């Protein structure tokens, strides 16, 4: 595995590139994770998924959005539009490192939603998209993140690394984020509109979280899979069921 920083000096992103363990020409896969506590809890599952993809012949790249994980920036710098651009930056990086033209993107939770929204502007052709329990309704998602001390407006404006010198900030899921980030989350709505992506699309819903959605492919295959599987983004204390092997296998089968 090659851990490295990429992107620009002002917007450094942390990535972990893992080459395929054998040259089977399967292609390359970009993994787009979730955010906040979900990102932390699901880190191991994403790494295991990456390893299984490598064993199946894929080069993989996992990365952290700006202001999240090991990437540059503070949580207050997080913006959904910026994160969609980060997906494009990571996709370019993976394409260059892998040298393959067969690309898949796998998004988990908020990462899946961002992949859907970023799809029209992506800088490279993407053959397959896997959406693993995407956030369909931003309002519901925000409500799920509320904590006893959550969503409290800070009395002092804070200075982010990028953007305007001072922004209104709130605490969400234990992290300091900008009001525009919360507005961005609130505006997510993939359940009431039809979305057609220019790639093959596999949408996975686990643990009876299935919600009506109309995400599919404009011209190619699309499929919705409803699986009984653990949710690795939940609190680690609740993760007694182990890794979501069913989801891993479904993704590998779809991408083969």
């Amino acid at each position: 595995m090659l851990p490295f920083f990429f992107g620009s000096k002002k917007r450094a992103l942390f990535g972990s590139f893992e080459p395929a363990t054998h040259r089977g020409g399967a292609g390359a896969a970009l993994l787009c994770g979730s955010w906040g506590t979900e990102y932390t809890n699901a880190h191991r599952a994403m790494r295991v998924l990456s390893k299984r993809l490598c064993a199946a012949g894929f080069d993989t790249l996992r990365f952290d959005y700006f202001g999240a994980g090991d990437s540059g920036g503070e949580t207050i710098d997080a913006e959904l539009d910026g994160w969609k651009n980060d997906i494009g930056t990571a996709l370019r990086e993976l394409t260059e490192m892998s040298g393959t033209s067969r690309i898949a993107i796998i998004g988990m939770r908020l990462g899946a939603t961002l992949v859907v929204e970023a799809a029209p502007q992506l800088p490279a052709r993407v053959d397959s998209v896997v959406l693993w329990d995407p956030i369909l309704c931003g309002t519901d998602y925000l409500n799920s993140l509320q904590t006893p001390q959550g969503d409290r407006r800070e009395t002092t404006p804070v200075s982010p690394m990028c953007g305007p010198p001072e922004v209104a900030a709130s605490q969400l899921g234990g992290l300091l984020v900008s009001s525009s980030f919360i507005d961005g989350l609130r505006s997510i709505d993939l359940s009431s509109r039809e979305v057609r992506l220019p790639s093959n699309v596999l949408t996975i819903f686990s643990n009876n979280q299935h919600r009506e959605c109309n995400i599919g492919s404009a011209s190619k295959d699309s499929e919705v899979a409803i699986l009984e599987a653990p949710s690795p983004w939940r609190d680690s204390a609740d993760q007694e069921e182990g890794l979501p092997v069913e989801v891993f296998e479904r993704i590998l089968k779809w991408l083969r």
Partner: protein
Amino acid sequence: MASVTHIVEKIAQFGREKGLVGIVADPAVPSNENRLAVVILNTGTIHRVGHHRMYVGMSRKLARTGITVLRFDFSGLGDSSPHLSDQPLLQSNLTDIEAALEWLQTTRGISRVVLIGLCSGADHAILYGFSDPRVVGLVLIDPYIPPTARYFFDYLSHRLRDVRNWRNFRLHKSKLLRRLFEHISRTLHLDGGPLHLEYHGLDPRASLEKAYEATAQAGVKFLVICTGQHHAPRQTYREQFINAFSKVSFGDSLQLEFFQNADHTFSSIRSRSELDELVASWCKNTPFERSTPLTPPIADVTALWSA
């Protein structure tokens, strides 16, 4: 230490076949003084970023005070390679800490290190610190503290005041008696402590006492921080640490802090900010000086625990 604005974050890979992965934050202009580094250890199975990204913020703030900070993943956690040796997990983690200190010494010439750990990270720090003369300080956040008589009183009082427990008792769902029995069992050494402290069948409670004593005698400084809002509290009052380890001669090497309103993972921004300020201030103002041992240093946990 002078305050610096700019820091540089780089990838750190070290250990066997460079299988351990971390992020090192350096001040852009390192000081010429007798340099100090901080190494932040994993909390449980959470990778080096920490809950609520707490270790990213902490390392950046410390680096801005002129300290080099390394946060890395133990073998088998985060992005590090699985541990392949036949060592027990605890010994493997302690070997990884040694590799981190070797890397700091080799790449940056730093031989004075403070270890920071929360929960299992704190336990790893205390079990390693005495054996390596490069360790001059330990920041132990919610380390394992054996229950005391006052702890039981506080715990029982709290549970009896909670109306939900009476409802559960009425519905025959009460866990109070079982929990109390578990705690008493631990106190009576029927069950030694957390699973991650189990090692070759030795008793972690007695062994921790030895580790604290050996570390204090070596002149290592302690900053022990306990939180008051743990969902399954292991400590209920500020002095529990001192009461539980009453046989240890800490002298003036111990600073004890109790964050009454913080939970175990520091989920509020305010508590994390206060934690960062406390740690930075302690690192800046503490006179770190490890004493020369009168007796040969104890090599590792095995030697200490079986002594």
